[in-house]
């Protein structure tokens, strides 16, 4: 099982905003890897912009099921600086709402 999740190869456009697709990627790609005890690398190469709802749906289910393990073991790469800021905001909100 490859531990890298390349978003563009999974149908995400350069503007990542489709929440249903993000949730599907979480269920089909991220959760099984976490279940297998692996670190998951989510590759944002080619993603130019992102809505906050996309990122929320990408990680919310994992955060709810695995808690701290999900925050520790899901790693993001090739992230544009401004997208990274959105991620930080969503992570903070997520930890408050799921606490």
């Amino acid at each position, binding site marked *: 099982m490859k531990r890298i999740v390349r978003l563009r190869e999974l149908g995400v456009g350069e503007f990542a905003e489709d929440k249903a697709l993000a949730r599907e990627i979480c269920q089909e790609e991220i959760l099984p890897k976490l279940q297998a005890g692996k670190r998951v690398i989510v590759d944002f190469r080619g993603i130019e912009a992102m*809505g*906050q709802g996309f990122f929320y749906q990408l990680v919310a289910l994992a955060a709810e099921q695995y808690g701290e393990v999900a*925050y520790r073991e899901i790693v993001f790469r090739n992230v*544009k600086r401004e997208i990274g*800021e959105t991620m930080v905001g969503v992570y903070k909100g997520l930890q408050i709402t799921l606490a």
Partner: protein
Amino acid sequence: MKVIFSNQGNLRNVRKFFEKIDLSEPGRLEVRAAGGWVAAHPAQLAITASLALQAGKWESEIDEKMPESGKILAEMGLYEFVRNKATFGAEVRDEGAMVPLMMVRDEGERAELMRRIGRLMIGVEQRRMVQYVVGCLVDNALGWSGVAPVVAVKYYPKTRKVGIAVCDAGKGVWGSLDEVWRPRNDLEAIRMALRPGVTGASEGLGGANVAAGMGLFAVRGMAKLMRNYFLVYSGAGMYELMRGDRRLKRKLRADPILDRHFATNDLPPFLGTLVAMDVSVDEVGSFQGMMNEVTRMYVGALVEADEQQTYIPKIMGRNV
């Protein structure tokens, strides 16, 4: 039911249009024009199409004496929701300037809607903004109302604005929040829904993993940052964010009542929800920058409610 189009087709004065909607006889819809000139914002078109869906296509009709300027109704696809055909000449739709009325029932139609927005003749950042706003509103409607929404988007090159409207004939904002939040009336329900972290999915700020309670707040926030009109009409309630003063610093507030607004709970009781806004092409600098500003506000409101230690995402290597 009766809907009257006039020469006022701006979001600024759309309230008068709503006040004149006659919702008696819900099994029948008549659409007509007042005066010799017809203008229509997507908000007016979307709510009319929703009413036509409620009445049924064969019970809905547009007056045949519609003036020539009423061809905007044909261009935007309103005649596809009623039984009679347009009496104007062959309609020419400019795909770069509009996304005519369309129903979004599933993921496939949502993707098609995004493709059509992608063809609008506006910049990349502006297109992302429109796609984000429409995507949020469509997801909200599909997720909470249980009814497929009607969407319309129109670009006005002269005023450099994009008018957006998403309308569903579902259970309304009050119906979505009643089980958990118990709002007293439609206006209070709208006010709650516009606050960060409020969702019908759970009690307290923030939702379960299914919803963050940020969508509608973020859309209002984007309108505020762009100093544009934004409105929600559901039941008898309507909240309208007024244009911000250019001399003042743009600041987002958690409670929509603290922003410059108009609110009423005395409109004709529309069974459903209409959300509409304008996107000023020249006010959108960086979509992601604005997204970050809105996200920070959202987190600020949540943190206020629940001070605690939080993790940040681990990002490998240098940012690209």
